[in-house]
């Protein structure tokens, strides 16, 4: 199981700023290991963020997003104390879901 995400959601100027740091190798499938064999691709393919059951962002990624991906976005309508849930799924079908409280 992958390490938890770090999610920071801050309410400011009527919007909520969300910063997410995920823990993932994001292996491109083009890199070779020490013995010269290709390291198989392993990367997050889709990301979804929801607030009170409503989707506030979805993303489709390829392997060119950096290792331990960082994502920042803003949405309107969030209140302090609400939860923001972020879920990712990688190309091997592995999933991880974490939540952050808006403050």
């Amino acid at each position: 199981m992958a390490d938890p995400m770090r999610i920071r959601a801050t309410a400011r100027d009527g919007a909520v700023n969300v910063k997410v740091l995920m823990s993932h190798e994001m292996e491109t499938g083009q890199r070779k290991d020490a013995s010269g064999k290709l390291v198989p691709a392993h990367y997050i393919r889709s990301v979804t963020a929801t607030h009170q059951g409503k989707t506030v962002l979805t993303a489709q990624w390829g392997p060119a997003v950096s290792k331990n991906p960082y994502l920042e976005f803003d949405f309107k309508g969030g209140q302090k104390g609400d939860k923001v849930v972020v879920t990712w799924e990688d190309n091997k079908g592995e999933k991880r879901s974490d939540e952050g409280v808006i403050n």
Partner: protein
Amino acid sequence: MNHSRRKAIKTGGGLLALLLSAGILKPGEALAQADAFSMKTLAEALRAVGAQNPAASNAIVFKAPAIAENGAVVPVAVESKLPGTESITLLVEKNPTPLVASFVIPAGTTGSISTRVKMGQTSDVYALVKAEGKFYMAKQEIKITLGGCGG
């Protein structure tokens, strides 16, 4: 190398068929995504996401360094001031597969995104924005001192 690549493509196809049959993905959508990420040139990737001849726009603002030391971690932020922004897509022209990431912006979410991308070499980076059903594009060159792909 070729063998494993074929195998990977085969497995990918199988997974796609499975997702399609399970009704999780709509056929058009699923094909568009899988195809677009495997396209080798900018023009092909743009065609695969359905954006032919996007109009250049000054309402798309890039916040990215002109020179990045490490191509493995290039911070890129894009802000779209176009009304009715529906999606933001990032493409790096000279990467092996130019399509990097695509973000769907629902109503209520601001048209601005920050993330970090890998770049193999100095290249133009494109932000493609879909707003009110039309495609717009802006680009910025980012110089790379140390490549972030392969190694």
